[in-house]
């Protein structure tokens, strides 16, 4: 840890032996310091927003969704390009899901009238007969899929959660928790 290491340096390391560049180093350090300060300010004020929408799917192409629905028909989300699709994850055992169901029924009707929206439900951790019974009792005739892999693809950890997919197949909104029919209609534009 000495300045003059035998056999290591070829030149002596004293300040006088070198060209005067102290001011260069100082300027560079000053500029770097300012950039770092700006960066830190940015980080300090950018914090916290990410938690509002933890879904990485927003602005991304919707993952492939296809399969045989509860009713026996085939469903493939790619066949619904040109139409908005509301992808809803739910379970019959979850109270907010039961609470949002009338809104979904309303949206299905609205979508059927103007052809703008298709509702799709994906069952999260539930049984087929219970779901069938639930729909019988509470109404709704839209496709219902059973596929646990879809929850992984959509990174859904708890229900209800919904994704609004635009006519180009891009996810434009992620709604954790129950949805409101009016919000969805507003997002699509009456």
């Amino acid at each position: 840890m000495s300045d003059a290491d035998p056999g290591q340096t070829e030149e002596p390391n004293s300040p006088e032996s070198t060209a005067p560049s102290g001011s260069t180093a100082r300027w560079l350090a000053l500029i770097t310091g300012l950039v770092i300060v700006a960066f830190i300010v940015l980080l300090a004020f950018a914090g916290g927003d990410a938690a509002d929408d933890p879904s990485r799917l927003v602005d991304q192409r919707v993952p492939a969704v296809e399969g045989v629905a509860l009713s026996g028909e085939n469903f493939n989300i790619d066949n619904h390009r040109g139409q908005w699709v509301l992808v809803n994850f739910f379970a019959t055992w979850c109270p907010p899901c039961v609470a949002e169901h009338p809104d979904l029924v309303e949206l299905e009707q609205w979508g059927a009238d103007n052809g703008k929206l298709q509702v799709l439900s994906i069952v999260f951790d539930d049984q087929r007969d219970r779901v069938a019974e639930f729909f019988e009792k509470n109404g709704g005739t839209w496709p219902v899929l059973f596929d646990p892999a879809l929850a992984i693809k959509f990174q859904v950890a708890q229900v209800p959660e919904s994704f609004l997919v635009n006519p180009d197949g891009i996810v434009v909104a992620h709604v954790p928790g129950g949805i409101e029919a009016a919000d969805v209609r507003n997002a699509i534009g009456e």
Partner: protein
Amino acid sequence: MNSALGFGFTALGLTASVLGAVGGAYGLITHNRALTKSVRQWAWLVLVAGLGTFTVMQIALAQRDYSVSYVSKVGSDTTPTLFNIAALWSALEGSIILWAMILGLYLAAMLIKFRKEADDPLFGWALVVMLVVSAFFFGLMAGPANPFTPVEVAAGFSGPGPNPLLQNHILVAFHPPALYMGYVGFTVPFSFAIGALITGRVGEGWLVETRRWTLAAWGFLTFGIVLGSWWSYEVLGWGGFWAWDPVENASLLPWLTGTAYIHSVMVQERRGMLRVWNLSLLCATFSLTILGTFLTRSGVVNSVHAFSDGGVGPALLVFFAVVTLVSVGLIGWRGDQLRSPGAIDSAVSREAAFFANNVLFGAFAFVILLGTVFPLIYEAYDGTRLTIGRPYFDSLGMPLAMLILFLMATAPALPWRKASAELLSDRLFTPALAGVGAMVLALAVGARGVSPMIAFGLGGFGAGAAVRQLVIASRRNGWRGFVGRANGGMIVHIGIIAIAVGIAASESYKTDQNITLLPGQSVVVGDHEFTYLELGADQNARRERVYALIEIDGSDVYAPSVQRFAAMGTPVSTPSVRSGFTEDVYLVLDRVPDDSSGAIGLRVILRPLMAWMWGGGFIMAIGTAMALVPGSKRRQDAAELRRSIAASAREKEATSV
């Protein structure tokens, strides 16, 4: 009980760090020898505190002591022992315990290694810096991220256990500790760099003293990153190994600047050049470990790994500000003494190649940093969030990686100062032949496409250069031809080439198909036949599992599965992988039967040479270990140097009193 004990050790760690740092700094400024000496005792206490908090938390986890807040978050009655031990680093608060303990271990290693230089002010300042860093981490544990907070739970309570994804594979026991050994290890050279700046002794001595520490930290980081991508590949079931996720980027950033440093430091040792640059790289590497921790622990950027927590983010940001601004300030202050003597004589020389290496690694780090924080910059400007993904990183990273491969192939042949054409053609002939050979071989087995072919050619070239070097060295020095920095470095090069070839082949020639199979049905994908035998299911207290038995080519049976953990509703798809030297077969159960037909959805991914990536990681680890063994010539140099350093330190002390 555990709560109180754990908090006691935390308080001890914080107190010892603060007192040691303040006392040490004051002693050094006032030349108070007794005070400076006392720092060593405080440093030992920090080790005791680090080991203490770690042990208490392990005991609390083992006892399922849910009155400790961290255990109530990540413990559960049903977690198997191995994953229960690994639960310590499965969430934010616990990972800080690991950080503090490893820092304590490094501190102790420093005290032992440099016991003869104890009076050297440079070493004294390095200790002070280490203690400041440890004060910060113990401070986090005492304040915003206290894992030992006592909580009250009802009788019969069992926690949720670690995140299910963290109790799926044995690699979770190794990947985080290896990574942290790397991150924390960079604190040592950083503290020496700051010590050198403060004392004004910016010559080469401290570099020589710390280069092995840097190399060891770098080796651990490398190994940790490779293990992490292996874990991602084996567990996450998405078929890939690297997603350019902010956490992954956060580990790659210090790796890139660290890699740049271990190359450019040789230029400084040999020619005394690039001093400011090298100090800046060390400071940047350490700062980037803190920045990465901030980015991923504060919830600022979205990440699959993020353990977001409000209190820790601001603290980390303040610490990052202190570290970077103090470093930059010191470098600016000492700028006059850092002026490099000498200049690069020729563009075709070893030092020029190292310089080019640094430009490339620096550019790579910049590209990744920009891609990681650009969404934040954009958000500040536009108010909307933007996602930067794979295309950006792939399209900018690939050309840089190719240039780095090219440099790796040619640089070992270059002499210092200036190369002649004859010398080069002589030294590069065999490696170039190996490169051509690799391309011909690749063509012969059916590889096509420009970029992968360039990668194979450069890979062969680079491997040829490394092998040539090793052959020459071992002819000259016997087994010592494989140890020491230059030779170990060549082994590391072979490892990284294996990784590069593995990435090029497995990405370029990947087959990825989704198929639907009925029981008993077979399908051919690539050169393989897959038969779906039957569905099975089992369950235990912590999870239920549905698996499909798939026979590959009529012989081996693999079982990709979907698991659901009691603690978490989301089903987790666990792949089943047949790894081989030439190809990996990767099976994911995409859809479990949902109707009477019993059809499953199976995703089949074939990845040629994937295993080269993991093999390359092990070769790199071995190479780093070999590089740490002193070569025959260096051993004498080092002994001589240490004597002269001790002498000059005594002299300095005598004159300054």
